């Protein structure tokens, strides 16, 4: 099947595609969240050592993974925007930043409420926690930088540069539990619990991660549509959208 992908580098042809993808991903996300939450809170048995406090894992791990992954995707779009000077790539990066910030904030928040009953503290200046906090600040910094620069094309380049420089933080987060002897445990999926239990846990985490993926796709594509409308105002194709609102 031959698809002319270049066609979608233009906002005109990307806009309707973003709308249908966003809708499909949103429906899928709702279904997966429903299944995932039932698995996480009802089907999965209570952990032998941590009791029901461990159920936070079904939110914490997907949020933390997404926070890192969204940053890498944002860095990829930023590199594209810098290299090829394509405004749609910059808009995609712009659309991902708020959701990435949200995921980072939720990873820290759920981690705090998991850390308190298991480690005895909401917060410690642990290597992984600190580097995740820096990730949140990077997201907020990119958003603030965008808001501080009037010219959108200049903001694109400045934000892309900041995003790429900050990308060094992602491997630091990922390897922090190996590089430093730190409070946060390493990857523990399937290592501590009985096999049947571990399978259930892994399945629940994967469903919730898929849900977070679909949610991120849905919400960021919906946001990029708003950004296209904001930034391309004056383009004649946009005015045809008004006839069918929210097309």
């Amino acid at each position, binding site marked *: 099947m031959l698809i002319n992908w270049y066609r979608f580098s233009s906002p005109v042809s990307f806009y309707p595609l973003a709308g249908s993808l966003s809708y499909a991903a949103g429906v899928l996300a709702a279904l997966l969240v429903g299944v995932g*939450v039932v698995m996480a*809170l*009802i089907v999965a048995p*209570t952990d032998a050592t941590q*009791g*029901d*406090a461990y*159920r*936070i894992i079904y*939110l*914490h791990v997907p*949020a933390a993974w997404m926070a890192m992954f969204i940053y890498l995707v944002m860095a990829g779009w930023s590199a594209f925007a810098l290299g090829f000077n394509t405004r749609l790539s910059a808009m995609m990066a712009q659309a991902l930043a*708020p*959701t990435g910030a*949200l995921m980072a*904030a*939720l990873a820290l*928040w*759920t981690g705090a*409420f*998991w850390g*308190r*009953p298991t480690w005895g503290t909401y917060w410690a200046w642990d290597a992984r926690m600190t580097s995740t906090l820096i990730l949140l600040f990077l997201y907020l910094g990119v958003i603030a930088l965008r808001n501080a620069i009037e010219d959108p094309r200049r903001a694109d380049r400045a934000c892309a540069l900041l995003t790429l420089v900050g990308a060094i933080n992602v491997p630091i987060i990922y390897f922090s539990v190996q590089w430093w002897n730190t409070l946060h445990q390493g990857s523990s999926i399937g290592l501590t619990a009985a096999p049947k239990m571990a399978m259930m846990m892994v399945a629940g985490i994967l469903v919730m991660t898929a849900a977070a993926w679909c*949610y991120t796709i849905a*919400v960021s594509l*919906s*946001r990029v*549509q*708003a*950004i296209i*409308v*904001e930034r391309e*105002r*004056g383009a004649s194709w*946009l*005015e045809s*959208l*008004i006839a069918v*609102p*929210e097309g």
Partner: protein
Amino acid sequence: MSEFLAMGGYAWYVWMAYGACALAVVIEIAAVRARRKRAFDELRMSAAPQTPSMLGARGSR
């Protein structure tokens, strides 16, 4: 049911985590909807049938 809500004594931690995530998702979806509405409202404003006086007020192109 109350046993479920008690979460084996960890209700505060579990529900604060799940509650915050649910709230965050609701707020983000509302924020994106508001942003879309604003963007379309502004587009509609700028594309409204223009009288010469309106063009003057906006600064003609």
